[in-house]
């Protein structure tokens, strides 16, 4: 009889499926409202982490200002939903808007053939300026159609997605939607990386010149990857708008730095790592907040320390490290069991 070989990848897959089952079946039926509300927000952020993991880890494009597309997605959803009334259409359009903005910025960056550093600076500056711009739109003259932008207050009247009968979704339904969207986004990223397009993108991360010499127009591939990532970030923004409401904080530097920390802690070049790190670190900072440990637990200080230490000491992140450790452990176990078998045979 043949047993399937146990590998760290398969163990990880099994753990992910168990976690998804728990999130989809146990949590909504338990009726714990805090868990459901924060779970929805965590899932929206996890999709944002996924969007950066895709563009940074697999295409080698470090977008410091991924929150720009997150915020644009959220604001586009709120503005469109208030204007056209149909929230489903608004949600889909908002994702397209975020992807379109990514395309426009991407055109200038990739056709200008800007280097890594410049890409980082331009995207970061984009989110910084959007943050300042949105923050000062509090006057009544700042309106798009029927939607007031609301300055630093954001748009508290952000409409909630509706079901087929036109009734707003319950928090439980939003939660399930967010979990499903996260799973779907993960699967889309996985499938995308398995296609020819995904392979070329990874190839140009490894060596852009070589990919170019093989005849690929690397600018187009980068633009494609950047658009998809922008769209994913837009989706995260739409979901976030449904869990809370849209406010300038979506663009803020704090959000951008948290996002970078999730990806680098989880593991660059993995998709599951940033998602796991996002959940763990959000839960961790929530827990820190409840500790009342005084001023020394300033969130910036903690985030900064984590970011700097990981860059210096563990630039590969936790997930690859765990996988390597797991593989070693499995190898040891396998070695022992074969040794035991051999000894048993010898005794007979």
């Amino acid at each position, binding site marked *: 009889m043949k047993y399937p070989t146990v590998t760290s990848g398969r163990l990880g897959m099994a753990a992910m499926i168990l976690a998804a089952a728990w999130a989809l079946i146990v949590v909504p039926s338990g009726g714990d409202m805090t868990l459901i509300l924060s779970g929805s927000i965590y899932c929206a952020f996890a999709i944002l982490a996924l969007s950066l993991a895709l563009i940074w880890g697999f295409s080698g494009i470090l977008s410091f200002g991924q929150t720009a597309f997150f915020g644009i997605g959220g604001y586009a959803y709120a503005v469109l939903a208030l204007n056209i009334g149909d929230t489903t259409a608004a949600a889909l359009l908002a994702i397209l808007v975020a992807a379109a903005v990514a395309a426009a910025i991407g055109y200038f960056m990739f056709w200008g053939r800007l280097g890594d550093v410049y890409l980082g600076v331009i995207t970061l500056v984009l989110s910084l300026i959007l943050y300042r711009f949105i923050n000062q739109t509090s006057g009544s003259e700042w309106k798009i159609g029927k939607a007031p932008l609301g300055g630093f207050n954001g748009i508290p009247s952000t409409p909630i997605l509706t079901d087929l009968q036109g009734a707003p979704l319950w928090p439980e339904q939003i939660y399930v939607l967010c979990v499903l969207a996260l799973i779907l986004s993960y699967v889309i990223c996985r499938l995308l990386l398995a296609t020819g397009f995904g392979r070329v993108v990874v190839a140009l991360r490894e060596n852009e010149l070589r990919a170019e010499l093989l005849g690929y127009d690397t600018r187009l591939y980068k633009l494609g990857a950047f658009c998809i990532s922008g769209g994913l970030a837009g989706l995260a923004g739409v979901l976030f708008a449904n869990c809370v409401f849209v406010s300038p904080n979506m663009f803020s530097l704090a959000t951008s730095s948290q996002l970078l920390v999730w990806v680098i802690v989880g593991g660059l070049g993995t998709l599951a790592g940033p998602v796991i790190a996002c959940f763990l670190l959000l839960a961790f900072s929530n827990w820190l907040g409840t500790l009342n440990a005084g001023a*020394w637990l300033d969130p910036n200080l903690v985030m*900064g320390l984590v970011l700097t230490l990981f860059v210096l000491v563990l630039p590969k992140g936790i997930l690859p490290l765990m996988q390597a450790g797991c593989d070693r452990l499995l190898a040891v176990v396998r070695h022992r069991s074969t040794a035991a078998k051999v000894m048993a045979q010898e005794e007979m």
Partner: protein
Amino acid sequence: MDYVAIILLQTTISIANLVLISAGLAVIFGMMRVINFAHGEFLMLGGYTAVIAAQHGVPLLLSCFVLAPILVGLVGLVVEYLVIRHLYGRLLDTMLATWGVSLILIGLVTVSFGNSVSGISTPFGSVAIGRFTIGLYELFLVAVTIALVVAGYLVMRFSRIGLIARATMQDREMAEALGINQRAVYRATFVTGAALSGFAGALIAPIAGVVPTIGASYLAKCFITVISGGPAIIAGTLSASGLLGGVNVIMTFLSTPVLAEVALLATAVILLRVLPQGITSKFFRRSQ
């Protein structure tokens, strides 16, 4: 007539401001090809030094010219020793790590001094031009900036330190082969950049006030200026400040200061589409 004069003066002030706050970043970028994301926080620390010293009765100019550069230079030295020197040659990692450092500095200052705005009154009073008034302190800043640029040019052009700096910028391997200690040059550069930022931050403090998070509001402008300017430190900063400062003032007069910042970004993005390595990659190529 006085309207034209005031616009010209405002433009000059705006350009000088950009040069002043970007100088430290430009030195580090020009020499080391490292974008220092903690630049805004170095400015912020300079500002805090000036404000706290003023609250203890130290005259502003003393803290600007002596205290702030020394203190922020020391912070730069510590940051270089603990973080940057492990990351030379890993560009993106340097960006990430300096961002981490910037968050740590924001956190530390928030913990120590709280989150509120502090400020000092702007010295020197103001002068009237026709119907408008303009702060004398802002004109003083223009003068300081001009002096700084001239001093920078003289040092780069005529001193031995400037020679070493130019050699390292042009070809670092060759400079190393000729017996220049790379590590020492890099450390000195980082400390100089930090000290310059502290100096600028202290000078700006009376106009801008200080909060722990003020770095972010300088960040956008400084980065855009430095990467639009390109590799040459002085010529790059001057030409980019001239262009972007001009756009900024014109857009501020036509609409609002924030829309002017949006225009600043748009200008820079379009500029980089045409000149990806910045202005000095094509023009003023033989300058410093």
